[in-house]
């Protein structure tokens, strides 16, 4: 009895905060857009039966007719994937250095990784505008040391979006990889060298495979939020960067077409479910391996 009660807590949480809102969004995605408050029909006022008979998949069909949507999805997946690889390239060396640092430094280094979270995410992304713009700090600095004669255009390009995503999500990459590397027994590397590996081979054959779970966890933790990212592309990417988060925002607030926006959101969720399930399976496998 007590066990059932205990288990019911997370299920209740999931029901109230995930399934019910999802059902609402899904219902809106099957409705029609109208000029009213709320801006969709039918509603519960007309009774359950009338409501159910008026629902249709029109909005989903609409998404396939305009190539804006699938281009936005594709572009989002590509940007999220490239950002994930870049974040891994930045995060792994940092995590490795942290795990190799003297014991007494590690807590401080960990603190430094987490520290940016103490400032609002929005402010930090705004700060990048000041750094990356044509008259920004980066261009001034490069001018100052005489490396460039023409200012670089970084802001409002995909490059700025990559910089923003890598900057924002790199802690999510560092932490799981660090956790995996810190547990790594140093004598395993010595054993690999003793058996004829060069430093690089030992890293490739022992360190990488043994931090694989950390890498996978980090990649999902970056890829999943980056896919639906809205703030970074709209502040740093300008109009040239097409991402589904931005399309969603415009459908809701500029077009006030809630049903189409909801349909976009439902498809996005379906795209996200695949990596989330893969992520869960990885976590489960790791838990089993640890036993």
């Amino acid at each position, binding site marked *: 009895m007590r066990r059932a009660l205990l288990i019911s807590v997370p299920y209740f949480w999931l029901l109230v905060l995930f399934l019910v809102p999802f059902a609402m969004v899904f219902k809106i995605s099957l409705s029609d857009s109208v000029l009213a408050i709320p801006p969709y029909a039918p509603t519960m006022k007309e009774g359950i039966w009338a409501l159910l008979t008026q629902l249709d998949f029109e909005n989903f069909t609409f998404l396939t007719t305009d190539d804006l949507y699938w281009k936005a999805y594709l572009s989002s997946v590509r940007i999220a994937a490239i950002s994930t690889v870049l974040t891994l390239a930045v995060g792994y060396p940092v995590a490795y250095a942290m795990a190799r640092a003297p014991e007494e430094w590690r807590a401080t280094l960990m603190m430094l990784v987490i520290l940016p979270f103490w400032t609002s995410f929005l402010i930090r992304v705004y700060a990048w505008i000041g750094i990356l713009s044509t008259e920004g700090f980066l261009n001034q600095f490069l001018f100052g040391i005489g490396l460039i004669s023409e200012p670089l255009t970084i802001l409002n390009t995909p490059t700025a979006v990559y910089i923003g995503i890598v900057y924002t999500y790199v802690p999510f990459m560092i932490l799981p990889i660090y956790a995996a590397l810190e547990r790594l*027994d140093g*004598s*395993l590397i010595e054993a*690999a*060298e*003793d*058996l*004829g*590996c*060069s430093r690089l081979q030992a890293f490739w054959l022992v360190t990488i495979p043994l931090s694989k779970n950390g890498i996978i966890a980090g990649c999902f933790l970056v890829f999943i939020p980056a896919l639906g990212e809205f703030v970074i592309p709209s502040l740093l990417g300008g109009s040239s960067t097409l991402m589904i988060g931005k399309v969603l925002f415009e459908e809701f607030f500029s077009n006030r077409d809630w049903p189409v926006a909801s349909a976009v959101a439902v498809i996005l969720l379906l795209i996200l479910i695949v990596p989330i399930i893969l992520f869960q399976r990885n976590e489960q496998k790791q838990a089993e391996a640890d036993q």
Partner: protein
Amino acid sequence: MAETVFAPWDDPNETPLITFQNVTKRFGDFVAIDDLTLDIFEREFFALLGPSGCGKTTMMRMLAGFENPTEGAISLAGKDIAGVPPNKRAVNMMFQSYALFPHLTVWDNIAFGLKRDNLSKDAVATRVEEMLKLTRLQKFARRKPHQISGGQRQRVALARSLAKAPKLLLLDEPLGALDKKLRQDTQFELMDIQEKTGTTFVIVTHDQEEAMTVASRVAVMDEGRIIQVATPERIYEGPNSVYVADFIGDVNILSGTAKPFGREMYQVDWGGGTLATAASAKPFSDGQSCHLAIRPEKISITADRPEADNAVQGKVLDIAYLGNLSTYYVELPTGQTIKAQTANTRRISRRTFTWEDPVWVSWTATAGVLLDS
């Protein structure tokens, strides 16, 4: 037909496989190895024995290539190996923690080193099978390290380090994680494998029994120096210092002054009622302070005064019953305690002596070793 005794260290024509020449290793201010010179010969089973922090692990890590000497030279088969990285040395190591790769199967663990040598697939497979057979692990080839027992893991580590047929195998406390019974079995297995493969083994251990059992020679170390290098019998019967006598096995130490008394014979005034007679090939001058070290099993315990070179009366203070042996702690009138050990050839109910019994302890002139301070 008597076999020739394996003793290359006594043969001046033999060239050693490994030479430490005035090797010193410092970590900052700490001197881990202090001006150490040592020869190890081919096919030897050489034990480095000492308390933790005595530098034995540092010596092993220098042989493996993980540390380089601060001063002096180490040569392997005549070549100076300073600066040669671990992966370029014909030396393999069995780690104390075994350091088995958790993501690889037993088979792949053993094959790991072989694959680095660019051998053909068949050659690797043949060698791995050979190693699995040698260590009786064929049944576990497909398992991961966490799916086998501690003793099996130890054998995988041994197989992996032997697979490349190194000139020298280093074993860092190889049996430390095993329970006593398994450890004893494994000691004989190790000796057997060492003999079969003809590899030179250097073992690091703090367990003196283990060192005595497996090794052809034992080096007793303390604070970065080697105190004595000799065969197990010589170390036990003829320790060169009080430290070695005390470190290896149990010992009674009577301290006093020596007085020459005939040829290679001395009388030791140790503060007891009578002078102790002791033989010693090592010369002592009249009045030189010395220590007489006598092993407990070389001391007899009797009810009546025996005919012996040395006999002292005392009373039984305590008895340590070990099953096969009993150690009697005999208190002398001077307040000193002497340990005498006897084999329990009779059942305990028929034990001759008990607490508070007056007894005589006695030993021959050659039973002890006379050591200077």
